[in-house]
């Protein structure tokens, strides 16, 4: 193995307490690169189909990429993998911050946790040594408190930890895994998987060094990226306002969904009202900027709010997805309420997208008298009611009363209550993220057919359609480009990059950086991209899922079409996009099966061929 890897994977069985490490083989690294690529390969081997996502047979992995922890820019990310308790599908969710690089420096490219403990524990890893420790005193602490308690317990103030908050402990299907106090691997319920294993935290401290195969080339590519940022139009915007800089414009442009996907921004909001959603409106609370490891952009910020109805003190600036899901999706323009909801989610360990979307769903149900006030425990869930949105978020976090139902997510709540299904905006139970396929039609294919459904950070044509006219609804010939964009994103994610490397002017440096760090040639890296996508896809096939089991909610694809606004009349032929995508990949449209010959040519898929074609 030439470079970029720590060279070892750690396996922990919580049922037996056994901890063992394995060398990361060169073939595994070449074929699956890292992140959810290696994660999918390992989980496919370790797990049997039909495993209960909240049972001991689910395997939870935390995996880095080869660029993680190196000198390469935008390389601070790690990925959490498991079978989702929400969708029953393959699940991956990534996070930034500093945890991933620390894990690499501690000696491991990834950690895979199987089994379940009968009492709360945490995994402590320090420079190549791992042990399970009692977490009884940590159980019940929120994510930020847990970080501090771990520092005190280990005497290591510089440790980095991936933890669950109370929502993960209570198996909320909206629970995520937090790291560094406020970064989140959010989607698909991985926090509930960790909670079911009674694993409170993975805490790491590492002082090793990760060396690239060609450090000189990495340095040159870093310089090229920085030069690219100087001319990239959005780099300064993201640096100043973070992802939330665009929330107001997106609420009006048709990019953000409005009113649980049933509204139109320019009808609901005046420009002045929409402007309240922009991070510029809360800049007065900013105390300092925040950047993840090796990030030259720094799109984060720390806030301090000591006044108003929700004086949360030190907190973080909400991201775009958070501001939109707690904002335009519920017709809420109270920025302080959004900050409060963000703080609740960060402390309890909740996915802000799904939490905001679940509350928007509940509001529409309440407005249409699906729920009574008695059923909501007195919550007056009306559009734009900031007090009620904060109260509902707190109740959800506490799993108290009606909040315990909402903690199941919108689909889980509808199933539990036996009503409200007509207002769900989910794919396989996972709430859609905050970019609208009626605005960027290619997102429909990504949301529907990515093996991790309802994700805005997965590849496809969507974001390349920004600024296009009505021709964007034309699906003819979409397959090859869709696959190409998806493969690029597979590599960007699995190598350990933040997607902003592409949007800040460094897209053309992604593959060269992977090559410079790993020493793998271009052909190897490109082949791995499609192999990784295929590996995630066949995980779902082995679970018995077929393409027909993945359906988009009608509103999100323009059924019925909106009568006014920027997306008026737009109908997304998501099934045609799916047809073209499957055809370009050689996947059967009905069974989902990849062609046997393609799998054979791919290599590294021998067990998959046996499973699919025996």
């Amino acid at each position, binding site marked *: 193995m030439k470079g970029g890897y720590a060279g070892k994977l750690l396996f922990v069985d919580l049922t037996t307490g056994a901890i063992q490490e394995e060398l990361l083989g060169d073939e595994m690294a070449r074929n699956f690169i890292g992140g959810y690529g290696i994660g999918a390969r390992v989980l496919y081997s370790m797990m049997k189909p039909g495993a209960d996502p909240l049972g001991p047979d689910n395997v939870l992995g935390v995996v880095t990429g080869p660029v993680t922890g190196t000198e390469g820019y935008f390389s601070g990310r790690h990925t959490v993998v498991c079978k989702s308790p929400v969708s029953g599908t393959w699940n991956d969710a990534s996070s930034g911050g500093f945890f991933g690089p620390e894990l690499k420096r501690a000696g491991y490219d990834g950690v895979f946790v199987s089994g379940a403990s009968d009492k709360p524990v945490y995994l402590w890893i320090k420079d190549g040594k791992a042990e399970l420790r009692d977490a009884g005193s940590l159980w019940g602490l929120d994510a930020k408190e847990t970080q501090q308690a771990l520092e005190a317990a280990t005497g290591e103030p510089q440790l980095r930890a991936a933890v669950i908050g109370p929502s993960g402990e209570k198996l909320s299907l909206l629970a995520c895994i937090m790291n560094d106090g406020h970064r989140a691997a959010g989607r698909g319920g991985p926090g509930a998987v960790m909670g079911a294993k009674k694993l409170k935290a993975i805490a790491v401290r590492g002082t090793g060094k990760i060396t690239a195969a060609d450090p000189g080339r990495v340095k040159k590519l870093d310089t090229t990226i920085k030069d690219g940022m100087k001319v990239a*139009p959005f780099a300064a915007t993201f640096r100043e306002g973070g*992802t939330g*800089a665009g929330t107001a414009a997106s609420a009006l*442009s048709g990019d953000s969904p409005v009113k649980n996907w049933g509204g139109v921004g320019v009808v609901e909001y005046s*420009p002045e009202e929409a402007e309240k959603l922009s991070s510029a409106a809360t800049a007065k609370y900013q105390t300092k900027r925040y950047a993840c490891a090796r990030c030259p952009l720094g799109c984060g910020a720390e806030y301090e709010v000591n006044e108003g109805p929700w004086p949360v003190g030190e907190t973080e600036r909400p991201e775009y997805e958070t501001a939109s899901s707690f904002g335009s999706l519920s017709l809420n323009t109270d920025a302080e309420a959004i900050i409060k909801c963000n703080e609740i989610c960060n402390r309890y360990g909740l996915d802000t997208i799904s939490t905001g979307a679940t509350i928007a769903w509940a509001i529409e149900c309440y407005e249409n008298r699906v729920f009574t006030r008695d059923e909501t425990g007195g919550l007056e869930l009306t559009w734009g009611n900031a007090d009620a949105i904060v109260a509902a978020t707190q109740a959800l976090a506490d799993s108290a009363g009606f909040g315990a139902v909402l903690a199941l997510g919108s689909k889980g709540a509808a199933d539990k209550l036996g009503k409200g299904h007509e207002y769900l905006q989910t794919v396989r139970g996972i709430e859609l993220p905050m970019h609208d396929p009626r605005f960027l039609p290619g997102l429909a294919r990504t949301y529907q057919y990515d093996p991790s459904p309802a994700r*805005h950070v997965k590849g496809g044509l969507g974001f390349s359609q920004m600024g296009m*006219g009505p021709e964007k609804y034309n699906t003819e010939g979409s397959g090859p480009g869709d696959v190409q964009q998806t493969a690029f994103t597979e590599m960007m994610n699995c190598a350990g990059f933040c*997607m902003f490397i592409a949007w800040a002017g460094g897209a053309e440096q992604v593959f060269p950086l992977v090559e410079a760090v790993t020493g793998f040639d271009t052909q190897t890296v490109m082949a791995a991209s499609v192999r990784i996508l295929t590996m995630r896809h066949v995980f779902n096939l082995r679970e018995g899922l077929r393409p027909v089991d993945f359906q988009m909610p009608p509103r999100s694809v323009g059924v019925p079409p909106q009568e*006014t606004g920027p997306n008026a009349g737009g109908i997304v032929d998501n099934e045609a996009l799916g047809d073209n995508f499957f055809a370009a990949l050689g996947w059967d449209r009905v069974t989902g099966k990849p062609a046997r010959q393609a799998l054979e040519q791919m290599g590294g898929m021998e067990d998959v061929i046996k499973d699919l074609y025996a």
Partner: protein
Amino acid sequence: MQVRVRFFSYLGGLIGAQQVELSLPEAATVAGLSQRLQEMYPERAVLLAQAVFIADRKSTTPETALTDGAQILVLLSLGGG
């Protein structure tokens, strides 16, 4: 005709102006306005070509005819999470 163009939110910072008043031909359309703005701000022409135009709080197409006194909102969406 006279129209008032407002570059919404962060777009104003990128353009270097929050709003401008323009004189346009009587048969002006949104496509014509977009072209005019791209010529006025050539360093941001690529972004302006991607922008959404809202006229008097109503959505437009490139063919939409503008009216005298129209208030035009120019929006640019950011991707991202």
